């Protein structure tokens, strides 16, 4: 059974979570929704907070991060589902033979951007931004998710520049997807 935060802890946690969510979503409505869901998951018993383990504001930010990350994941899956529907509609019924269908499928997957080809396209789009290239190489070469400080150790690039490289990679990825869609 988790601990119950005090009123002051809830205020501090809500404020911290809102500051985080606003910075990420840039939208008051979306930020409030994410923070609300994070707190609901606490009193619904989906998440447990233990005072001895972590401060409540840290817990609240972590729970909100999880909610926003899950929303993004749902959107990615929705996008993938739409791409699959397009393939089914455009290719699946038009190809004459099984071999034709396979070839058409491979082309379509490449066009729609399988994750691997999407990463290759991202790599190509970076140009001469060495930090971003190193960060991407480090991320692709490890077997677990890395925080900025870990990437800094992996690449020898200062953390501040890793943040900027991450931003550039994220921006390029969004632009590539926007162009494709």
């Amino acid at each position, binding site marked *: *059974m*988790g*601990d*119950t*935060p005090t*009123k002051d802890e*809830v*205020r*501090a946690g*809500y*404020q*911290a979570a*809102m*500051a*985080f969510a*606003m*910075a*990420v979503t840039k939208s*008051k409505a979306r930020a*409030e929704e994410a923070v*609300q869901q994070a*707190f609901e998951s*606490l*009193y619904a*018993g*989906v998440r*447990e*907070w233990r005072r001895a383990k972590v401060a409540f*504001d*840290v817990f609240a*930010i*972590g729970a909100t*991060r999880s909610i*926003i*990350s899950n929303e*993004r*994941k749902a959107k*990615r899956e929705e996008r993938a589902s739409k791409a699959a529907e397009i393939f089914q509609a455009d290719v699946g019924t038009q190809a004459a033979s099984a071999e034709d269908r396979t070839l058409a499928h491979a082309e379509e997957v490449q066009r729609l951007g*399988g*994750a*691997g080809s*999407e*990463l290759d396209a991202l790599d190509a789009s970076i140009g001469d931004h060495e930090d971003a290239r190193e960060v*991407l190489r480090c*991320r*692709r*070469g*490890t*077997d*677990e*998710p*890395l*925080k*900025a400080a870990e990437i800094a150790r992996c690449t020898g690039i200062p953390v501040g520049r890793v*943040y900027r490289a*991450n*931003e550039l*990679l*994220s921006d390029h*990825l969004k632009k590539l997807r926007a162009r494709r869609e």
Partner: protein
Amino acid sequence: MPKRNPEDVLKDIEDADLDEEMDRVLAMTPQQRRAELEAAGIDPAEVHAKADALYEKMRAKPPGPIPLRTQPNRARVVILVAAVAAIAALVVALMPRLVPNDVATPAPNPPPPPSASASDAIAGDGSAPAHSSRGAP
């Protein structure tokens, strides 16, 4: 070193800003967070009011264990076992009725030869039955 799945790498890139913002906000003091929210046009009094409403909800229903995923699973297992046992008992009880008689019961023995009195009754016309031992010399 084993490489990550490309989809995971993409997810990491997409969520990198979450980690960065998390680190940044965690490094701030409560006053700095408040100032940042005010700069974004959010009234601190409104933030407190919403936080207080959530606190009241928590007080009304304090965070507890997570029975949603554990207890019902146990209950489901018990119900499942009971249901399987009941079905098995029903099948056993109904088996004799469900299986045809010629399969369920052994074939009857051939009928015994009729007795003399029965033969007499059959042969009511006075003639001796062919199989009767009484008429034999």
